[in-house]
């Protein structure tokens, strides 16, 4: 007897939500050590901190910063979705709720860009 070859259904917003939730969580976890390194340089004096921060003034890091802000917002919004499902038994309209979560994260990212950070 062999296993079936039936493929998974294509449109699965819940799957997409879980994927983005975990990937954003990994991105934030990877960011944390960098954050602590930056804070650690401050313990060694203002010059060391300024030197380190100087390294972050380039396009790549700025783009990554925007990505992290989006990831943080997406992680929070999708986490609230999971809490609503598991604690409030919220029978969601998954596609709309997940789209809303992602739209919220990009809106927060846009606000971050507009704030000139």
């Amino acid at each position, binding site marked *: *007897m*062999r*296993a*079936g*070859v*039936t*493929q*998974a*259904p*294509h449109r*699965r917003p*819940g*799957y997409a*939500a*879980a994927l983005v939730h975990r990937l954003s969580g990994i991105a934030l976890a990877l960011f944390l050590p960098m954050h602590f390194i930056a804070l650690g340089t401050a313990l060694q004096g203002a010059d060391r901190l300024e030197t380190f921060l100087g390294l972050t003034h380039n396009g790549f890091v700025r783009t990554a910063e925007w990505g992290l802000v989006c990831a943080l917002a997406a992680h929070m919004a999708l986490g609230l979705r*999971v809490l609503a*499902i*598991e*604690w409030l*038994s919220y*029978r*969601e309209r*998954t596609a709309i709720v997940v789209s809303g979560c992602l739209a919220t994260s990009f809106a927060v990212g846009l606000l971050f860009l507009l704030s000139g950070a």
Partner: protein
Amino acid sequence: MTAPVDHAAVARGATEVLRVRVRRGDGLAAFAVPRRANQTVLDVVTEIQRDQDPTLAYRFACRVGMCGSCGMTVNGRPRWTCRTRVAAVAPEGELLLEPLRNLPVVKDLAVDMEPFFEKWRRAHGYFEPGENPPDDFAAVLPDSVERREADAGIECINCGVCYAACDVVTWNPDYLGPAALNRAWTLVNDVRDRGGAARLAAVAGDAGCHSCHSHMSCTEHCPKSLSPTFAIAGLKRETGKAALRRLWRRG
């Protein structure tokens, strides 16, 4: 759910032929089946087997949505085929029929349900009366929290649709799956049951309720409109409380 059927148009022969592809082994077999009013997907499979290819294997019993044996993948979605109207799922007159996902295929559209029911046993999905039978009937108030929680999941017909829809089962073949966990949750809320602690321990492992990622596929696809996701969430809470109680006793 079910889309309205234009019976008059079908009776006039508006859409004469359904183009049906059936997964048989690694390949697909093509059939043409006359379209009929009120036709279900199970009707289509039966007509193919009776009139065109008697070697086609599939499973059904009651034909009225009670037995849970006719589950198949219809155009990419797991469904009960006896209550699925062709008009609702094949507006273009094309059907792709495949066996349920996540279960070994016996032949064509028939899958082996043994792993599915084995996980019911592993999740302690059976009533435990305890050592000593009670002196009297248990009083279960219809409005009690436990009764309502059990009611929410008790209508499961074991069709395997949620199991086929679950991504976590695909990733971890040991995962107990939505149906077994839903059954465990109804028993956790059965005030007559005496096997609660062992059941919570059985569903709290690596392949248990905490592996659920809340994709909601089981809840979206359940033909009985149950919510195994909420049952699993209830098990997560109860197993968490049981772990805290154990810690408290040790401390």
